[in-house]
């Protein structure tokens, strides 16, 4: 059984890497798009078999435990549906000439490299390896954001590049400090960077060094999460890149960065002398939430608006994990899953909308339910879900976050609820214009499959109505681990 687990672990990493090499070499849109979907599907199956087989022993480089398996399954699932969406989306981009065949080849290869880098980050048991994987993920997304080569896209890619690089540099400094803290206790060499070894011995580490390390790590990886003072790259990168990449950025990459923060938070929590990492995360989370909620009002570009909504939701998730305790952690996990599913569904819809209307501006997009019923209603459901209305899944997770805040820190519930309501208002205000009224712009049918979008929305709805007990048990177990 363990052998199967090892095989599955290898497969989760090797399939994306091998298909990236293959996709870089193969010409032709039809084959490569299908191969991309197939590779994502195989990775998903490998991840599922990793979930159900016996866990391999944590090694020096890789680790599978209850915490990261949630992320891996979510990651590979959304990567699969996004690749299906991307096939239809890219066909249109190719037809309109925004992408040339050579860039298309590059795009597919980069998509798989990104999947590899994210899976590697999640599976890494070595904090140095984790850092390298996050760097690779950053570089691939930078290249993909700039793929249209318009001045705006290049500017967005450059901004993302510089801010992402600074974040990565700070995270490396934090990683070195963690190693320095481990040095006297664990001894020299590779063991002092292995997370499972660190967590066993962390009680004896020098707390002052750990504190300093966490500040650097939170700022560094927090840049990639898009937490408030460090979020400036996020709206541009979402708005100017291809929409499948916006979906992957919002739905997956932000989670992966948050996962890195959570790993280090666990280290700090296990050291009695270190500061509590929670309040710092709560502060950054609340700031992001309130700031992004207000920023939602003045947006003219539909992708930019949903990018701000991602900052808002990452703020809620960081806040929930910062609050800690079984209930808040459970709510944070659930919210993360629901946000990933909903936000990528929204970006699927937005991608098709931008293609049929030929614009991303709100002024050019009106009356979608009349001109494109399937698309319009799908987007409507998605926005209603992301705004946090019942009976969809996000309502439930937000309700849990708010209620646990009332129970644990009632004063903090004021800014939390304020941010939620302000964001809610902005989304519904925009939704009215988008979905109803006189249709404007192009009315040509989208000619794409809505299956990925509706599949995500169905899952979000199902989770809002009924969570199966095994899933609840699983999440409760993980929430307990997070402390």
């Amino acid at each position, binding site marked *: 059984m363990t052998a199967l687990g090892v095989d599955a672990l290898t497969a989760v990493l090797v399939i994306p890497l091998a298909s990236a090499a293959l996709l870089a070499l193969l010409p032709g849109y039809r084959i490569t798009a299908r191969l991309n979907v197939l590779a994502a599907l195989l990775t998903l199956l490998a991840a599922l078999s990793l979930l159900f087989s016996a866990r391999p022993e944590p090694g020096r480089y890789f680790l599978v435990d209850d915490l990261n398996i949630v992320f891996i399954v979510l990651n590979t699932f959304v990567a699969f549906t996004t690749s299906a969406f991307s096939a239809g989306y890219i066909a249109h981009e190719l037809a309109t000439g925004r992408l040339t065949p050579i860039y298309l080849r590059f795009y597919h290869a980069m998509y798989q490299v990104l999947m590899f880098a994210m899976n590697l980050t999640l599976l890494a048991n*070595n904090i*140095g*390896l984790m*850092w*390298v994987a996050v*760097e*690779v993920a950053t*570089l691939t997304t*930078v290249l993909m954001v*700039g793929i249209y080569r318009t*001045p705006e896209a*290049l*500017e967005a*890619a*450059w901004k993302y*590049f*510089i801010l992402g*690089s*600074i974040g*990565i*540099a700070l995270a*490396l*400094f934090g990683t*070195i*400090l963690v*190693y*320095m803290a481990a*040095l*006297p206790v664990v001894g*020299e*060499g*590779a063991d*002092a*960077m292995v997370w499972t070894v660190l967590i066993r011995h962390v009680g004896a580490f*020098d707390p*002052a*060094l750990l*504190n*300093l390390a966490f500040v650097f790590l939170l700022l560094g990886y927090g840049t990639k999460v898009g937490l408030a003072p460090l979020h400036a790259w996020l709206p541009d990168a979402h708005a100017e890149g291809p929409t499948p990449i916006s979906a992957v950025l919002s739905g997956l990459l932000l989670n992966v960065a948050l996962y890195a923060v959570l790993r280090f938070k666990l280290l700090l929590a296990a050291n009695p002398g270190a500061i509590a990492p929670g309040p710092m995360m709560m502060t950054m989370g609340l700031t992001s939430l309130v700031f992004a909620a207000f920023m939602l009002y003045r947006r003219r570009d539909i992708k930019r608006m949903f990018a701000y909504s991602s900052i808002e939701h990452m703020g809620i998730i960081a806040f929930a994990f910062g609050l800690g305790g079984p209930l808040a952690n459970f709510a944070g996990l659930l919210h993360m899953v629901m946000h990933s599913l909903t936000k990528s569904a929204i970006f699927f819809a937005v991608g098709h909308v931008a293609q049929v209307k030929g614009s991303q501006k709100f002024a050019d997009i009106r009356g979608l339910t009349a001109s494109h019923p399937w698309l319009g209603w799908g987007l409507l459901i998605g926005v209603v879900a992301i705004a946090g209305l019942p009976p969809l899944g996000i309502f439930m997770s937000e309700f849990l976050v708010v209620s646990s805040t009332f129970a644990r820190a009632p004063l903090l519930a004021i800014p939390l609820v304020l941010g939620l309501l302000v964001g809610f208002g902005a989304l519904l205000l925009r939704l009215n214009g988008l979905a109803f009224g006189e249709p404007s712009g192009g009315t040509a049918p989208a000619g794409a499959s809505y299956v990925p979008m509706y599949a995500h929305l169905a899952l979000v709805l199902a989770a809002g109505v009924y969570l199966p007990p095994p899933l609840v048990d699983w999440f409760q177990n993980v929430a307990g681990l997070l402390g």
Partner: protein
Amino acid sequence: MDRLVFDIAHLLAGGLVLVSFLLLYQDRLYALLNIYALHALVLAMSVAWQAFAQNADHLYVTAAIALAFKAILVPGALHRIIARLGIHREIETVVGIGPTMLAGIGLVALSMVVMLRVTMAADPLAREDLAFALSVVLLGLLMMVTRRNAVGQVVGFMSLENGLVLAATGAKGMPLVVEISVAFSVLIALIVIGIFLFRIRERFDTVDVQVIDRHRGERP
């Protein structure tokens, strides 16, 4: 003997901080690149000395990368790009040199206070190395925010990254140092290629020689 090893390591790491200060006030792009090459050279020497002091052979690889790639290849490439784009004259800084230098001194003091206090227990060589490394990192950040053009920002980032390599080599026996320095080299290579290929239009417009000259012409 130990004392000497320690002093030389100290000297080289301190030299890196000093060169970071030199970078802060350069107002010509070519001069900036030359100083950056010096920065990378001092880093290479410091890393090589650490390799000798710690008996860690793999660090010589890091030193060689620093020397060949950062001290020779990257400045050379940037020289050519600047010549090609015709932007060699002057750099626009956001803040004047005086305040920038004062802020730099403040940052060095801050990193000394923070690191020396926090790392009481660590071994003294690593401890002071780390304090110097944090100073270099902070000075690099300062340089990035005080420069308005892409090349200036990139040089700031590269000097910041040199500080990180210094920190990583100072931490005794840290694994993956070579891999990390290779990963960073890839990052830098991409940035440099990015400047050339992407041309960063908006940013370069602000350092356009003609624009600067026109401003000059209007002055009495």
